[in-house]
């Protein structure tokens, strides 16, 4: 017997005092060797920043192991639509057919105006070889759509913008 799921509703504009009071955007300390800043902006269909979005990530540890006690983080966007995490690059984890996947973060974005979250992934720009043989990435034909999933190198970390709508829209997934 399966039970019908509860419908999703928007997180609304006023979630910050409920969901973002406790600091939870840093998985490791900034000083830790291997610590990596991942940041970006959430943008709407007009290219305007979304100041009331919440970005959550889920990832494996550096050894490529998913652990219950490590790997989840959350950050509300600021007035400029920006979010920022401090994390480590996850190791490679097995895919559906036991082939290793390229390192990636699972990303969920909630916002006022999103009646349900959008689901995407962030891959790493310095993993060209692993990305080239990743089953999911290689299955996305359009290079532009594939490119939206790969972060870009920046002076102080990796940049990963989420475009909710429009020509450069981030590739989103369904389950």
């Amino acid at each position, binding site marked *: *017997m*399966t*039970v*019908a*799921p*509860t*419908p*999703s*509703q*928007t*997180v*609304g*504009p*006023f979630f*910050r*005092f*409920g*969901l973002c*009071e406790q600091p939870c955007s840093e998985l490791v300390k900034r000083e830790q060797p291997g610590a990596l800043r991942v940041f970006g902006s959430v943008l709407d*269909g*007009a290219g*305007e920043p979304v100041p*009331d979005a919440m970005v*959550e990530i*889920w990832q494996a540890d550096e050894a490529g192991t*998913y*652990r*219950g*006690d490590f790997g*989840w983080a959350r950050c509300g966007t600021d007035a400029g639509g920006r979010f920022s995490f401090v994390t480590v690059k996850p190791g490679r*984890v*097995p*895919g*559906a057919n036991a082939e290793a*996947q390229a390192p990636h973060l*699972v990303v*969920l974005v909630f916002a*006022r*105006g*999103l*009646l*349900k*979250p*959008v*689901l995407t*992934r962030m891959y790493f720009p310095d993993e060209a070889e692993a990305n080239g043989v990743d*089953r*999911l990435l*290689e*299955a*996305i034909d359009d290079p532009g759509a594939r490119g939206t999933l790969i972060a870009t190198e920046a002076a102080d970390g990796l940049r990963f913008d989420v475009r*909710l*709508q*429009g020509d450069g*829209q981030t*590739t*989103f*997934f*369904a*389950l």
Partner: protein
Amino acid sequence: MRERLRLQEVGDEAEGQPPYLFPDYRSTRLRAPTKPLLLLPQTLSELTGPAFGDDAVDEFDHDLTRQHGGEPLGERIVVSGCVLDRDGRPVRRALVEIWQANAAGRYIHEGDRHPAPLDPNFTGAGRCLTDDDGRYRFVTVKPGAYPWQNHPNAWRPAHIHFSLFGRAFTNRLVTQMYFPGDPLFDADPIFQSVRDAEARARLISSLDWETTTPEWALGYRFDIVLGGPAATPLEQ
């Protein structure tokens, strides 16, 4: 040569869920994705999720009426229910977070410009973990309805925001719990964005005599079913 994975493009029609684009809710117009979604093969990345321990919640996190020096104004209520997976099994140790307006319909959030009073004894945020039977319980006050800018004379029905973690990160659910018989339902595009009437009904709590406490508080029951893939919990 190995076979290439084929990703199916799917429309935005998940059963019983609101669409991304619902023009009556104005903010969806520039924020709803317009390209097809790609059906994601399920790997460990989709089937695992964070586990939360007792250190995730403090003693008064579940009782929003005891987080300040005095009691908040308004109608004291008990809100409780079960968190279940799609097979009807309880989801144990699930983190449940809630946030809401006060009894006057005002959020403590700095962006809320509704000219209704803040309550010095009410923040409106709570969290708890479900027990071994998947049950959660909060004590709070009934939130007020409040106006918003979506259309002329727009009012939100009273609601409590819920955020939940299931066994897998992709079971994540953010939703809103409503109160039975609210006359604002028909005029609220966020509630109406769920097009299926039976699905909409699953957002409405029911008066619960089991948790209604004599001489003290009315009880409302709100059971929650998490969708997404089935998953095995990770040991913490």
